[in-house]
């Protein structure tokens, strides 16, 4: 499921940013404004729907959303992203 999770995250983010052609696993999503405060909730819902688990913001930090790798690790069973 992990590789598909990574693809799924990247596809979602790329759809939001048509100016980009690819997103590296370690690209800083926050610095590069691929994730921002106003767009965050919709991404959160997408992750919740995909994982079937509600995410409480009390349990997460901005660092969890910094890169595709950190998102996959934290919210999906991110074994094969290292």
């Amino acid at each position, binding site marked *: 499921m992990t590789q598909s999770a990574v693809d799924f995250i990247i596809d979602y983010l790329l759809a939001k940013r048509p100016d980009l052609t690819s997103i590296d696993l370690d690209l800083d999503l926050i610095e590069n404004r691929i994730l921002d405060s106003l767009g*965050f*909730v919709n991404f959160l819902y997408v992750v919740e*729907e995909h994982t079937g688990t509600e995410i409480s913001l009390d349990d997460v930090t*901005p660092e969890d959303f910094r890169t595709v790798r950190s998102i996959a690790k934290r919210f999906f069973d991110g074994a094969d992203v290292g």
Partner: protein
Amino acid sequence: MTATVLDSAERLKDILDRLVAKSEADYYNPYQLFQWPDTLPQEQYWMSPELMSVHGTEVGAELTEEQLHKLSKWESVNFYSLNVHGIRELITEVIARIHTKEFKLTSEYFHHIIGEENEHMWFFARFCNQYGGKIYPDLTFKFDQASTDGPAAHFLVFARLLLFEEIVDFFNKRMGEDERLDPTIRKVNAIHHQDESRHVAFGRQIVSLLWKDLAAKSDESELEAVRAYLKAYLRRSLESLVNPAAFRDAGIPEPYKARNRVLADPAHADLDRAILKRSVKFLVAEGILLTESIDA
């Protein structure tokens, strides 16, 4: 300096005097104003059905009357929860500016806004906790700490405050006089509408002045960035009225899919347009937005 912009505005001074006087005259004790019955009847609408996110949509057509009643309860709790969080965030910004040099002229009035918003936050929170057993959590995540100083930051704080208040007031005005709703629900909305008519009057004045200040000091690309942010803020504000957690609490299966279907439904877009109508007209008339579209 913003000091000059606000200080030189004769019209603003008159309006502030009038609003402060009106605030004093309208003053009430919110802690004694409401009856707060232990429970509210469940088998009826808690929100005007025309104001529910699903109104006129395919998703709405698939729901029974009982499900609609349930959803109206949770969507109203979501609406009041958004008020609680929106007020907390925005009065923090007003407090950060009160009795600073740039906002000397408006500080007296800020005391009234801060006091009244504190009370609004109290009755909205009380409603959520007493009749919903919870406040829906705030899902805005602060990645990009914007600067709190300078003409763009000042403008955006008061623009967001005004737009937030106008969106909320669209609901309060209608629900405050909707005979189908329980008297407690009507009263919460009617009382808020009464206070907010003053806040909106002030908001339009200060937003207009702060925009002129910002426009005089910024180049076109900076103004474009502010416009893009405001439009994103409006889209986000409207989307937050459609909460998958409210669908889940109403027992609607696949709440995220239901939300996406509602957001894509033309009937829902009609509601959004109605909610924003007077706000975008104002923004365009002031030159803040160039067109009435809030699309990215």
